[in-house]
C-alpha cells in the first residue's frame, strides 16, 4: 500500500488500507472459529475490542471504504485506517 501510494501519487491515484477487527461474516462467524475460541477463554479475552462491541457489521467497513474512495478524501493517501473498535490501540 505504501509503495503504491508513492508510485501512483504523481498520477493522482490514491492508495489506502482498511484494518477491521472481527466482522460479522462467515469468515469469522462459523463453527470452526467458535470451536477454536471455545478451547481457551483467554483467546476470547485477547480478541476483545476497546469499545463494548463484540463484532462489527460489514457496513461499518463499507462506510470507511466509501469515504476513502469519495472526493471527501481526495487528498488522503498512504493511510492505514483501522476500523477496529479500538482493538489495536488497546494493545
Amino acid at each position: 500500500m505504501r509503495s503504491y501510494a508513492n508510485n501512483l501519487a504523481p498520477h493522482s491515484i490514491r492508495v489506502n488500507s482498511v484494518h477491521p477487527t472481527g466482522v460479522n461474516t462467515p469468515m469469522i462467524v462459523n463453527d470452526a472459529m467458535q470451536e477454536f475460541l471455545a478451547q481457551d477463554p483467554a483467546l476470547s479475552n485477547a480478541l476483545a475490542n476497546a469499545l463494548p462491541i463484540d463484532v462489527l457489521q460489514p457496513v461499518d467497513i463499507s462506510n470507511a471504504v466509501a469515504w476513502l474512495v469519495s472526493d471527501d478524501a481526495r487528498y488522503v493517501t498512504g493511510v492505514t485506517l483501522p476500523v477496529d473498535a479500538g482493538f489495536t490501540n488497546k494493545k
Partner: protein
Amino acid sequence: MSGRVAGKVAFITGAARGQGRSHAIRLAQEGADIIAVDICGQLDSVPYAMSTPDDLAETVKEVEALDRRIVAIQADVRDYGTLKAALDDGVAQLERVDIVSANAGIFSFGTAEELTDEQWKDMMDVNLMGVWHTAKAAIPHLRAAGGGSIVLTSSSAGLMGMANIGHYVSAKHGVVGLMRTLALELAPDMIRVNSIHPTTVNTDMIQNSAAYELFAPDLPAGERTAEVLGPRFQALNALPIPWVEPVDISNAVLFLASDEARYITGVTLPVDAGSLVKTPG
C-alpha cells in the same frame, strides 16, 4: 433536518476562522448545531495576526445562514475555567454535546537551539494543554449524551520530525498520546477519540510572511508569494498539490464525527496528500 450529523451538537475550539470555521460550516451543513469558542486575540510569541471578534462573528453569520443554531463565546483554551464555563453555557442553550473538535492551534518556528521558553510554553499551553482542557471539559457532557466523538487536530508533524519546529512537533506528538489514552479511558462509555493529521492547509496559519520565511529564507521578502512558495510546499506531499483546503480536514472531521465511523476509535488519520509515506527524492 437531514444530514450526516443531524440532531447532534458540535463543540469546536479555534472556530473564528481557518479550519475551525470550516468545521463549523461543514458540520452545520450536515445538520449539527455548533458551540464555537476562540481566543479572538494575540499571543506575543505568534508571528502572524491571530483571530479577532469579527472573525468569530463571521462564523456565527455563516452557520446561521445554514439555518443552524450556534453559540459563540470568546474563550482561551489555556484557561480551563473560562473554557469550561463557555462550554457549559453552550450546553445549557443547545442541550447537549455529541461531537468535539479540539482544533485551536498556533504556529511559530525556530531551531531547538533558538527557541525561547516563551515560544515553547505558549506552544505547549495552546496546542497540547488546550486540547486536554477541551476534552476534559466535554467528557461529562458526552457521557450525559450516551456517547460521542472527539476529534483532536494533530498534524503530519505529530507523526514525524520536522526541522525548525521542535516545539510544534513535540506538542502534536503529545496530542497522539493523549488521543490514545482518551480512547482507552472513554471506550466503555462509547465515546470515540481519534486524531487528524493534516499536511499544510491553506489558512492564515501558513499563508503569512513568517511561514514564508521558513520555507524560502533564500528569497527576498518581496518575492515570497503563494505562487512561488507553492512548489516548495508541494515538495512535502506525494500527491501533486501544494496544500489541502480547510474543507478537506472538515470532511475528515465530519466522517469521524458521524455514525459512518461508529466503531472507529484510537486512530491517527492523516489527511496529508501522502506526505508521511513519501519517499525522499
